[in-house]
Every structure is written in structure tokens, then in C-alpha cells.
């Protein structure tokens, strides 16, 4: 027999694992991301609501959650099991919006605290209130859990009437899934009209995956067809590999079915007896508990790698996005260098100025034209890179993350930033030229502005500005010219690198802000392996 013996190390490992899971984020809108987010929430809920409290306090009462499709008669079943109207039943769907937990009065303390289902607010509602104002809790926006105590229920057993698992109300669906995960015993209720529905079978498959203690109730079976429907349902169960699941059949009784009344005790007696036996027989109880708990622990083996895989996919997508940006900017940078070498700056306006210099054009004008042309070249490189990035990102689903592509109209500001960088470069170059001229021991010192213009032309003009270099050497000497050109060249490289780097960083900033790292994957797997060792 499997028993539940829990060492503190296991609990530590489990809470470490929980933290890791809670820390995992899936911000990029990849195909698997919503699924991964749901899985993470479900896993956290199951750890918080069920596994950790159960392992900490194995002596707590068993919780049987009654789940099923809308209209399957879950509330009627709960009412009939306890022999009193604790949960509202009715003809309007979905009926149960607030989950109701029913337990023995002496077990009340187990559930009134935040031991299980900590994110549900407890409401304690005397019976008459419920009768007088049945809509009170339904209208409440808070996620609440109503606790009822009934002394007809055996000690050590609690029933939870969950909302429908495939509710039209999305919150109900989420809540129902969460509640099912908190159960020691999953009671799956279906009906004669529903037993072939796809939805409950999804639930059954999940139960099988988690190896939870499962029991099915075939409700609302017209008595003429009890045998046939029951047989067919059994066959379907067997086909799904769930042949050994205890199966109970409750006939449809006209006086109870739609009025919200109670079924006669005889109709639910077998189920009641089975539940009571699970709760009171220590052996059976141990087995039930251990099976579900270990089922969850075992299911971690496949669920954690799934989460880790999703985290890895996130990181890979982020990496791809970053690589697209880097690739675009790198190739644009190479192109920019090539153009600079070829003297692309000395074209158009700047070239015309240079051709008419110095006869019809002053050094200042030439310098202005060169700076403007350089800024245009830089801006062109940056926008081309951005365009490439956009193109590459268009094929990436992950690029749809909010804030990643909806850039502010940065073109103007990029122009502004680049213009600023170029102006700064020009000023520094002029300062260098002044220094060089001042150091010159010549009676008639050349105009520093002319020197600066000639240096800039020589640096940016490529081959067609060879005469600028000659003119420069003539004015400040070959050594000085070489020195100044070297300085200016280094300066130019620095400023270009910085400008492009800034733009790239600016482009990557929103992606960096999403904080997608490779660590969560490794951490999730590590937490899982620690847990495996502690078992």
C-alpha cells in the first residue's frame, strides 16, 4: 500500500519549485504562450490549493469536488448527498456560480482558514439568508467560497460543489478547473444526454493524466434506459482506459430533477457509502490521498518540462528578435563603412561645394555641407536598418508583443539625435584643427576653419578628395596633416559607432524591458530534479 510520508525536505523543495514556477513569465505572444500561462496558473493553483496543504497536513479531511458540465445536476447531487438544500439548484444555467463547500461542523476549522484555496474569500452564510436572497452571492464580484456545515456528513469528508467546467462565463470555467485541481477525489458528473460530450471526456483524460482518484456519476438517467446507457457509458470508459473507475448511476426522478429538490436517499446511497468509506476507513483514506498526491507529484515530471520548454521557446524567440536587430544594424554598419570609404558623403550638395571651393565657396559652407551630408548618410543607415528589422519581425509571431513594434514616430527624433552627434563631431574636429594650427610655428598661420574643412573633406571624400589632403599638407605640413587626419578618422569612427549603437539600443530597449532570460528554463528543471531527489 502506498502511504503518505512526508519529509520536510520535500516540502522545501516543493515550495522552491512553486516559487520558480510563479517566477516564470511568458510575455512574448508565441503560439504556446497562452497555454503555458494557463498551465503555470493551474500548476500554482494546484500546488497552493492542494499539494502543499495536503502534504503538510495529511490528517485534514478529504475533499471531494463535484464537477461536470452545466445542467448535469451537480448541485442536486450534493444536496441529496447531505440530505439538505445547501447548494442552490435550478433550471437556469449556469446555476452554481459560487462554489459551495460542505463539511461536518467539527471539520469546519480546516476550511475556514486559508489552508486550502487561499485566493477565495470565505463567506459564511446562515441558511435563511441564502433562502431569502439567493442572488446575493451570485452578484458578488469577488471570488468567494461559501462554507456550509452539515452534521449528516461523516467527519473527515468535505464536498465541494463546483461551477460547470465548460461554462459560458469564462471566470466560472477557470474557477472550476482550479477547484478540480484542489480535490482529493474527483467526482465527475455527467448525464444520459451528455455522456458522449467532448467536454467531460477532456476532464476525464486530465484526471487520468494526473492519476487522481476519480469517480464518475451518471446522473439523470431515465429509468427505462438505465441498463443500456450505463452499459454504453461503461464501454466508453473502458475504451478510454478508465474501466476501473467506480461508476454510479442516479436515475432521473421527476420530483427532484428540475425543482431543485432532493433525490431520495436511496438514489444516492451507493455513492454516499463509497465516499464515507473512503473517508473513514484509514486504509482506503490513505490510499486515496496518496494516489492523488503522488499523481500530482508525478504529473510534475511532464508538466515542469513543458513549462521549461515554453520558457526556452520564449528565450529563443527573444534571441531571434535580438538577432534580427543585430543583424540588420551590423549589415547596415558594414554598408555605411563601405560608403564612407567610397566617399559617398562628398556627393550632391557637398560635392558641388567642394568643386567650387575656395573660389566660390567658403570653408564654413563646405564644412556645413559635409556635416549635413554625413548626417543624411547616418540617418539613411539607421532607417534602412529599422526597415530591415521591421521586415524580419513581421515574420516573427513574437514581435506582436505590445510596445515592441509600435514605436513612437522616432524618425524626427532619430534625425535630431544623429544631427546632434554629427555637430558634436564637427566641433571637436574644429578644436583639433585649432590646436594643430596653434602649434604651427609659421608667420602666417592658416585659417583653422580652412584646415578643419580640408580635414573633413579628406576624411569623408574618399578618392575624389585627394587634392584636399594635398592642400592640407601644404598648409600645416605633412606631419601635422597626417596627425590631424588620424585624429579626425578615429573621432569619426567613434562617433559613428556610438550613434549607431545608441539607435540599436533604443530599438532593443522594449525587448529588454520584457525581461526574457534563459535562466527560468534551467531553474525550473533544477527545481524539478531537486524535488525528484527528495521523494
Amino acid at each position, binding site marked *: 500500500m502506498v502511504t503518505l510520508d512526508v519529509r520536510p525536505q520535500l516540502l522545501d523543495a516543493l515550495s522552491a519549485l512553486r516559487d520558480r514556477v510563479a517566477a516564470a513569465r511568458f510575455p512574448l505572444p508565441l503560439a504556446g504562450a497562452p497555454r503555458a500561462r494557463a498551465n503555470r496558473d493551474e500548476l500554482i493553483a494546484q500546488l497552493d490549493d492542494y499539494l502543499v496543504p495536503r502534504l503538510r497536513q495529511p490528517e485534514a479531511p478529504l475533499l471531494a469536488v463535484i464537477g461536470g*458540465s*452545466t*445542467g*448535469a445536476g451537480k448541485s442536486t447531487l450534493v444536496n441529496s448527498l447531505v440530505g439538505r438544500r445547501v447548494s442552490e439548484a435550478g*433550471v*437556469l*444555467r449556469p446555476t452554481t456560480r459560487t462554489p459551495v463547500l460542505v463539511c461536518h461542523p467539527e471539520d469546519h476549522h480546516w476550511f475556514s482558514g486559508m489552508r486550502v484555496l487561499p485566493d477565495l474569500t470565505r463567506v459564511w452564510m446562515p441558511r435563511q439568508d441564502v433562502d431569502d436572497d439567493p442572488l446575493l452571492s451570485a452578484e458578488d464580484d469577488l471570488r468567494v467560497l461559501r462554507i456550509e456545515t452539515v452534521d449528516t456528513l461523516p467527519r473527515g469528508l468535505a464536498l465541494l460543489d463546483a461551477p460547470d467546467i*465548460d*461554462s*459560458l462565463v469564462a471566470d466560472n*470555467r477557470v474557477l472550476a478547473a482550479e477547484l478540480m485541481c484542489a480535490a482529493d477525489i474527483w467526482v465527475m458528473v455527467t*448525464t*444520459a*444526454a*451528455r455522456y*458522449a*460530450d*467532448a*467536454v467531460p*471526456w477532456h476532464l476525464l483524460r486530465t484526471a487520468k493524466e494526473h492519476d487522481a482518484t476519480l469517480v464518475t456519476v451518471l446522473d*439523470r438517467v*431515465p429509468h427505462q*434506459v438505465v441498463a*443500456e*446507457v450505463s452499459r*454504453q457509458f461503461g464501454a*466508453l470508459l473502458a475504451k478510454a482506459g478508465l474501466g476501473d473507475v467506480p461508476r454510479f448511476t442516479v436515475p432521473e426522478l421527476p420530483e427532484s*430533477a*428540475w425543482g431543485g429538490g432532493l433525490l431520495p436517499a436511496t438514489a444516492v446511497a451507493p455513492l454516499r457509502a463509497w465516499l464515507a468509506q473512503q473517508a473513514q476507513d484509514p486504509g482506503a483514506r490513505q490510499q486515496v490521498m496518496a494516489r492523488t498526491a503522488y499523481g500530482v507529484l508525478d504529473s510534475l515530471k511532464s508538466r515542469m518540462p513543458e513549462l521549461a520548454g515554453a520558457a526556452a521557446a520564449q528565450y529563443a524567440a527573444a534571441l531571434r528578435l535580438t538577432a534580427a536587430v543585430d543583424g540588420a544594424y551590423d549589415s547596415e554598419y558594414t554598408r555605411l563603412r563601405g*560608403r564612407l570609404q*567610397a566617399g*559617398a558623403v562628398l*556627393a*550632391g*550638395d557637398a*560635392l*558641388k*561645394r567642394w*568643386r*567650387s*571651393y*575656395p*573660389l*566660390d*565657396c567658403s570653408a564654413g559652407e563646405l564644412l556645413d*555641407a559635409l556635416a549635413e*551630408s554625413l548626417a*543624411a*548618410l547616418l*540617418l*539613411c*543607415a539607421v*532607417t*534602412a536598418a529599422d*526597415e530591415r528589422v521591421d521586415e524580419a519581425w513581421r515574420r516573427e509571431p513574437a514581435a506582436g508583443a505590445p510596445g515592441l513594434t509600435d514605436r513612437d514616430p522616432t*524618425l524626427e527624433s532619430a534625425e535630431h539625435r544623429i544631427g546632434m552627434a554629427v555637430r558634436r563631431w564637427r566641433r571637436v574636429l574644429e578644436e583639433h584643427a585649432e590646436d594643430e594650427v596653434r602649434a604651427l610655428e609659421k608667420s602666417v598661420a592658416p585659417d583653422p576653419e580652412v584646415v578643419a574643412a580640408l580635414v573633413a573633406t579628406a576624411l569623408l571624400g574618399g578618392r575624389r578628395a585627394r*587634392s584636399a589632403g*594635398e*592642400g592640407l599638407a*601644404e598648409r600645416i605640413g605633412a606631419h601635422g596633416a597626417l596627425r590631424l587626419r588620424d585624429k579626425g578618422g578615429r573621432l569619426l569612427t567613434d562617433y559613428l559607432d556610438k550613434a549607431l549603437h545608441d539607435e540599436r539600443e533604443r530599438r532593443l530597449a522594449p525587448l529588454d524591458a520584457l525581461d526574457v532570460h534563459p535562466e527560468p528554463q534551467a531553474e525550473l528543471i533544477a527545481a524539478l530534479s531537486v524535488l525528484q531527489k527528495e521523494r
Partner: protein
Amino acid sequence: MTAVTAVTDHTDHSDQPGDDEGREGEGREGEGRQERGHARVEDDSVTDRRNAYKNAHKEDPDGEAVRKEKGDSGRVRTETGGGAESGSGSGAGAGAGAGGGSVEAAVGEDEAVGSGMDAVDATDSAGAWDDGLIARRVSVTAEGQARAVQEVVVDNRSPAVTPLAYDGPLRSRLDALRELVGLSRTRLDNRTLAEAGRVLDEAAARRRLSGQHTVVAIAGATGSGKSQLFNALAGVAISETGVRRPTTAAPIACSWSDGAAGLIDRLGVPGRLRRRPLQSAEAEAQLRGLVLVDLPDHDSAALQHREHVDRMLALVDAVIWVVDPEKYADAVLHERYLRPMAGHAEVTFVVLNQIDRLPGEAADQVLDDLRRLLDDDGIALGEYGEPGATVLALSALTGEGIGELREALGHFVAERGAAARRISADVDAAAVRLWPVYANRRQAGLSEEARDEFADRLADAVGATAAGEAAERAWRRNAGRACGTPWLRLWRWYQDRREPPTGRLSVRAHDEEATARQRVEQAVRTVAERAADGLPSPWAQAVREAAVRGSQGLCEALDELAVRAGAPVGRPPRPGWWPAAVLAQAAMTVLQVVGGLWLAGQVIGFMSPNLGVPVLLMVIGIVGGPGVEWACKLAASGPARRYGLDAERRLREAAAGCGRARVLDPVAAELLRYREVRGQFLRATGVDAPVG
């Protein structure tokens, strides 16, 4: 003739699907076989006509060959038609029905003329369909479509059946949608257009089928009592009911009057699953023209059932959703079916079955709740005479409420508007789905501002401003040199001799790549971005591509142009006062020289001493020389400015013209195309908004 070979080919091809279904429908007597025979014949003749049409256009547009071809295909049709006749004759059983008989009669009556006319009609329609990929899709990919086309003519020839006619607005919307799809093919991917294409195909297929009939499907969850309701309406236990879930696995069709074979064929319901209702004159009269289809469930674990349902729901004219008190709030029903089909409310019935299981007023409560849920789904409810879905409560078991449903159905069927309304709703849905790829956020178009900015950027790229300024200054320099004092010129000449002329003289070197590439690139990118701003992304992409395509070779063209337009045309023009100024300057020099000589003459005693006059002459010459130069400079600034501006303008205009022809015009054409498509889209949505 080609037509004949085509016939043999296609007989072989069409045999295969025919055989498959023939085997399936073995159980049915003559009727099925006869229809198969006709189907095959029609397939052939349709292909003939298509071939004939193509040939006609290819070979001889004059008409002679066309007529011959048509005649041929007509004859072929009659021949094979005869074969089918004999086939049906041999296989005609009790179930052969009136349809078969009338077909034979039609063929017998006017072989040559009638079928010839048919052929012409069909050729026309085939022509209308051969406008693009849609038609090809019809014939190539969609097997079902081909079959639907076959049925058309079967029905056409049967006098009992008149094809469905869409009213004007709907027809124009369908035309607009077809045009839209055709225009968008090259810009949008097939996936985006698939839904619209499907709607068009369905609309065309439905149009050729009986307009007297309304196909109504009964859909619902497993165990809601679809089959029970079906049987109750038919008055006879046709569809199997039971407690085993899911019960009905394949759709069953039941037709209240003749001539609906084509419609049922389109649904793909095999012959063995076609039924007739209980014969009763009263029921017949009330529901005349109704074709009822019992669908499998949509929510059971059996996946193929859902596929069946999804396929059929796209084909039928109207749907009766059967819900029961237990399942009426199922998420799968509302989220998967009712919400997406909210636009189809007018052709939707929602019936709450099994009210016999509800006590007392609970039935009303549940019905109200159901109404509330439907309202939440966005389905308009047909209450108080407004158009919308009909919601009823009934019990198929006890028969309660069946009468009402029968009555509602009777009215609905008698109106004969369901098919058109359904297609209209389909077009609505397709339009809504296409909305993001056609709707723009704001006025599309290239503003004057953007064009000007583009021209400015190009002018910058070729350096128009700098060229203009240089020309102006050069002109002024020349003027100064021409009108300057000779002494100054002498000094300059001497200076030039002393210093090497580095950069002193403007060398007109021929530069390669004189145009700033980066500026051109940026200009094109900016103007494309401006033009694409606010456009839906596929069209924005198309605009960008057009701009980039146009800009290829633009730089080289600008290079060439700069050389051509930048070169001065001959000598710079000289103003009329120029000779006078030169003369005045010369006079000043002469005065100086004369004064000097006079003085010198006095000094050497050659002339009588008279200081006053020569000094005065010299002073006038010395002061007047620079004075004239200064005055010339003043006078020259105007013409110089004009000359410079002229040079700038020449270059600027040449560059702008080049950019307009290569980039702006293609972009504008692309925008125009988008506007046209948008207009079609608006027509298809049925909104009569001005195109903008």
C-alpha cells in the same frame, strides 16, 4: 474537333467520383442512377463549352468558329443526353419521379435549339467566371463545385424548377466582392481571400439551384432531440432516435416537394439517406418547398460529426438550432456556433426542445434565459415583427409547440428569401473579416506636401542649391573681373603666376556618382512611408515595393541628368549695359593715362605748365575706376542672382521630373488601385460611402 476529344477525356475523369457515389447509392433504385448519368453528361458539356469559349477567343474572334463550336457542343450534348435517356429508361423504377420524365421531355422537344441556347447561356456565364483565379478554382480545386455546376443544368432543363434569383443590391454586392477578390489576388495571400472566395462560390452554386426550395438544417447538441424534431416535422419516423449517444452519425435529408435533388446533391447527402415526408395534402401545402436536413451533433467526442456539421452549416439556407433545458447554456454551442453566426440571425431558428421535462413556469424561465444568452451572443431576436432569429419552445415528444414551429417554417419557406438572406449574411461576414485588409485609418493619397518634400530631397541629392550658388558667384566674379580696373586685374594675373593654381580655377571634372545615394534612398523611403501611412498593411507593403522598384536606376539617371542640366548653356548671358561699363572703365583708365602723360609732359617741359587740368583728369580716372567697378558690382548682383537661380531651378526641375516619372507615378498608380479596391469593398459591404 477539340470538343469531341474533350468529351471523351472528361467522361473518363468524371467516371471516378460518379462511381464512388454510385456504389454508395446502390440501394436506391433508378432515380440515383439516372441522375448520375445526367451529371456525367453535364460535366462533359460544361467542359465543352469552356473549351469552345477558349478556342473561340484564341482562334477566331469573328464568330464563325464560335458558332460552329457551339453547334458542335450542342450536338455532342444531345448525343450523350440520348445515352443517358436510355440509361434512365432501363433503370427507371418507381422512384424515378417527375424530374426524370421532364428532363427527357425537354431533351426530346427541341434538341438543337434548346440545348444550343443553353450552351450560349452557359458560355456567357463561364466567360463571366473566367475572369481570374476564381473560375479556375471552381474547375480545378473544388470537386464539389464542379458537381454543383453539373446540377445546374439538370435543374435548368426541368421546367418545374426555376433557379434562385438574387435581388439587385445583393447581386451588385456579389459582383463587387468578385471584382474585389480579382483585384486583390496579387496583393493579398490566398488565405485571406479564401473565405470571400468560398462565399462567392457558394453564392454562385446556390444561385443555379432551385429558388423554390429552402434548405433548413436541424443542428444541436447530442441528445437534444434533433432527430425527434425531424421526425415530428416529417410526420414519420425517418431518422433513428435513441438513447445511445451520439445517435445520428450522417446527415439525413427530407424534401417536401420535387426538384430539390440538386440542392441535396450539393449537400453531399447520398441517395440512401434521402426521404420523403408522410404524404398529407395539408402538410404538403404548408411546408411546400422545404428541404429539411437532420445533422449529427456538434459537441460529442466523435470528431467527424463536428466536421460534418461545420461543412453542412456553410451550405444550407437556414438553421434550426435545437437546444434542451440541460444544454442550452453550453459554451461550445454559443462560442463556437452562435456567436460567429450572429449575423445570420434572420435565417436562424432556436428551439428549446424537451419542455415536457420542465415543470410549470420553469419552461418560460428557461426560454427567457435562453433569449438573454442569445442576446449576449449578439443575435438579433425576431420579436415584435423585427427581423431576427425565431425562438420557440416545444416538445418533440409530446408534440407541444410543433404546430407553431411548422407555421413559422411555413411562412419562412413561402417567402423564399432565406437563401438570398443567408448569402447576404455570408457576404457581410466575409466583409467583416476582410475589413482590416481594406479599411484605412485615414485618407489615402500622396499629399502635395509630400511630393514637394520629395522633390526637395532629390534636389538636395543632386546638389541643386550649391550648384546655383556656385553659378551665381562665378557669374559675379566674372562680371567683377570684366569691369574691374585693369591694375587690379594685372595684380591678380601676377598673383596667379606666382602661386600654383590649386583649386583656384573651378575645374569642371566629370564626377562619377555625383548624386548622393543616401539622400535618394532616404527620399524614396520617406515618400513611400508617407504614401503608405494609414493604409492596411498589404497595401502599404505594395506601395513601398512600387516605390523601391521605381527607385532602381534613379541614382544613375540623376547622375546623368546632373551632368546634362548642370552644364552651362554656352557662355553666360551678358546684360546690355555691360559694354557701356567696360567702355566707362576703359575711359577711366584712358583718363588716368592721359592725365599722367600730360603731367609727365609738363615735368619734362614738353608742355606748358598747367597743373590743374591733368591732376583733375587723373583724380577723376583714379576715383572713377573703382567707382565704376563698384557700380558694376551693384548692377551685376541682380543678373547674377537670376543666373544662379536659373541654374538651380534647371537642376531641381530635372531631378523632380525624373523622380516623378520613376517613383511618384508608380506610387500614385498603386494608391489608385487601392482606392479602386476600397470602393469595391465598400460596395461589397453594402455601404454606399464615397470612395476616399
